[in-house]
């Protein structure tokens, strides 16, 4: 039995209000000649305070766009984004500024996201200055405190970004994101550009900071291993839509969407014994263009169990409850684990 859920918050304990609630958010970018890139095409979910929710999916599926929509870096085409119950897409001016303080973003590329002409101290202090909260000596003290929080030497505040390694620059980006005591941090591939040995340092730091400052994270990555490690729940995105949301443990043991299953089968495990048994679910064809997503279920052109012609090509499946806190958008989710083998 499956229930179609109306509000995406049905999955969580109703006594606590979600910190973030995204309702039917759409972003279409104009692509010339009347065409539009349907980068985010009707996405709804909620994040509870203190939670880490992971977001995975192939390149171009709309992960960063969704992050930028939530932080209001770009305007939504339609839909609502509630932060603490307030729809921030409707706010303007000072009210928006005040809400935005609660939302910060950490970017993938620690090289490109820091202004090379500014000192590290100025980079970290920028949000403090912009929001006119503190200046002068108090500002310097705060910057040094932030540097220490992210594991950097506080005396580094007069240096420039090029004097730091990738991992250290990512720490600088994290310090800047923490400056205004935000509640929610959107981490957009914060470790993807880093070396394997440095990734662990940053992941551990993000986990420590979450505990210390009661932060809530939306953690974007294309590496499902990293996402699973850090997240309470994971959302899988395909071509502008969420196709599965599940507690991280469930997602690994029981997938309800064929795409998630294929994604899992693609991830190599550093263990030769497991690798020799793993079977790849090959997805036929290329990732379709977000300019013109396939009809019905947008995964039907690559899905190994699609019924085409038939319901998969005609009817778009909606996210439905498949288990405790586990949602998937597939007409045939009960066949996913029986029909698609991932071990020999």
């Amino acid at each position, binding site marked *: 039995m499956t229930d179609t859920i109306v509000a995406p918050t049905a999955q969580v304990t109703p006594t606590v209000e979600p910190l973030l609630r995204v309702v039917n958010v759409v972003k279409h970018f104009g692509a010339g000649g009347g065409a539009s890139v349907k980068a985010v095409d009707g996405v709804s979910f909620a994040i509870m305070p203190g939670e880490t929710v992971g977001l995975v999916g192939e390149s171009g599926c709309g992960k960063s766009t969704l992050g930028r929509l939530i932080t209001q870096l770009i305007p939504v085409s339609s839909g609502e984004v509630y932060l603490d119950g307030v729809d921030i897409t409707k706010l303007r001016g000072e009210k928006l500024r005040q809400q935005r303080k609660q939302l910060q973003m950490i970017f993938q590329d620690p090289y490109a996201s820091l202004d090379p002409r500014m000192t590290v101290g100025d980079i970290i202090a920028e949000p403090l200055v912009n929001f006119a909260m503190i200046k002068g000596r108090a500002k310097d003290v705060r910057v040094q405190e932030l540097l220490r929080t992210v594991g950097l*030497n506080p*005396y580094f505040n007069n240096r420039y970004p090029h004097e730091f390694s990738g991992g250290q620059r990512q720490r600088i980006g994290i310090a800047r994101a923490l400056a205004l005591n935000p509640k929610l941090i959107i981490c957009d591939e914060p470790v993807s550009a880093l070396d394997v*040995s440095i990734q662990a340092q940053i992941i551990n730091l993000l986990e420590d900071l979450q505990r210390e400052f009661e932060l809530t994270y939306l953690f974007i990555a294309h590496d499902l291993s990293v996402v699973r*490690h850090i997240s309470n729940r994971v959302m899988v995105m395909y071509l502008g839509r969420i196709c599965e949301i599940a507690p991280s443990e469930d997602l690994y043991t029981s997938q309800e969407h064929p795409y998630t299953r294929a994604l899992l089968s693609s991830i190599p495990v550093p263990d030769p014994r497991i690798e020799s048994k793993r079977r790849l679910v090959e*997805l036929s064809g290329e990732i379709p263009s977000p300019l013109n997503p396939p009809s019905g279920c947008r995964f039907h052109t690559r899905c190994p169990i699609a019924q085409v012609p038939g319901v998969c090509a005609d009817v778009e499946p909606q996210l439905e409850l498949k288990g405790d806190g586990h949602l998937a958008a597939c007409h045939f989710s009960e066949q996913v684990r029986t029909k698609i083998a991932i071990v020999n």
Partner: protein
Amino acid sequence: MTDAILEVRNLSTHFFTDDGEVKAVRDVSFSIAPGETVGIVGESGCGKSVTAMSVMGLVGRPGKVVGGEIMFRGRDLLKLSKEEFRNIRGRDIAMIFQDPLSSMNPVLRVGYQIDEAMYAHDKIPRDQVERRAIDLLAQVRVSDAARRIRQFPHQFSGGMRQRAMIAMGLSNKPDLLIADEPTTALDVTVQAQILELLRDLNEQTGAAIILITHNLGVVAGLCKRVLVMYAGEIVEEGTVEQIFESPQHPYTWSLLRSVPRIDARRGHRLLSIEGLPPDLIDLPQGCKFNPRCPFRVERCFNESPPIEQVAPAQYAACWVTMERAYAEMGAGDIIDTSPGAASGVHPAGRTLPAAEVPAALAEPVGD
């Protein structure tokens, strides 16, 4: 081993820059048997690509192979003329690179570029070349190959370009294929397909493969043997099972424990490797891993450990090795991975390099 197809002995490659001599690859030795699949792993800058480029004879200024031998089928490639080298490169040894877009010519059709790769070595008569280009693209599972050979590289997706590069690499049926991070720029689903393809090719054509990557999972799936590089040296070598199940070098051990695994339970903390790799211009004394090693002992600061046999077919360059670290330093339970944490060796009077100062010890400001 005399039946090796490639045997690299004591290879050293340095770069002579304005800042100083970058000792990128030092005294590296390994051999590859026909049809073997060998992985080279290690973090960014450890010398994986420079090793491969040295074998291919493609190290340009300011770099120079400053020592060693590269024996290919019994001939030292370093003693060949440019012309002789070019004949071997592309025909007997082929290389595929990380970024397929920058290594393909954007203004030439894909089919033409595959043809060129073949013309260059005249193994195949001209009239059969187009047929062969189509076959090759089909073999690397590019659908609709007859039409695709007339397209330009930008009309291919990232995964298809990488397939086309592999097709070029295979066009002359090489005995050795060096794949330098062939999947790093690709999505996981495409990566998995490319790896399957390499596995099939190895089985079908018998070409030996050297796979260079920092992704340990990729190595576990494709390679039978693994070389681990750190700061320009091979620090450990063994079968894939040995490296993943009983690594003996602390660097290999740390690397394996620092990557999140999809099959691991949530909640356990990753063991990070503190600090950064050393500066290759100004290398530390003794073991190059000592500034980051939780298991270091006094000797590690002064004497560089030679690579020695630690088990049948397994070699490691370490004065301690993990066997001792488990038995004497409780390696199985450590949580603190800062330098010297497990061994307690923080020599008095020694000033730690900046990169080594653990975050917790960075001196507080007096305000």
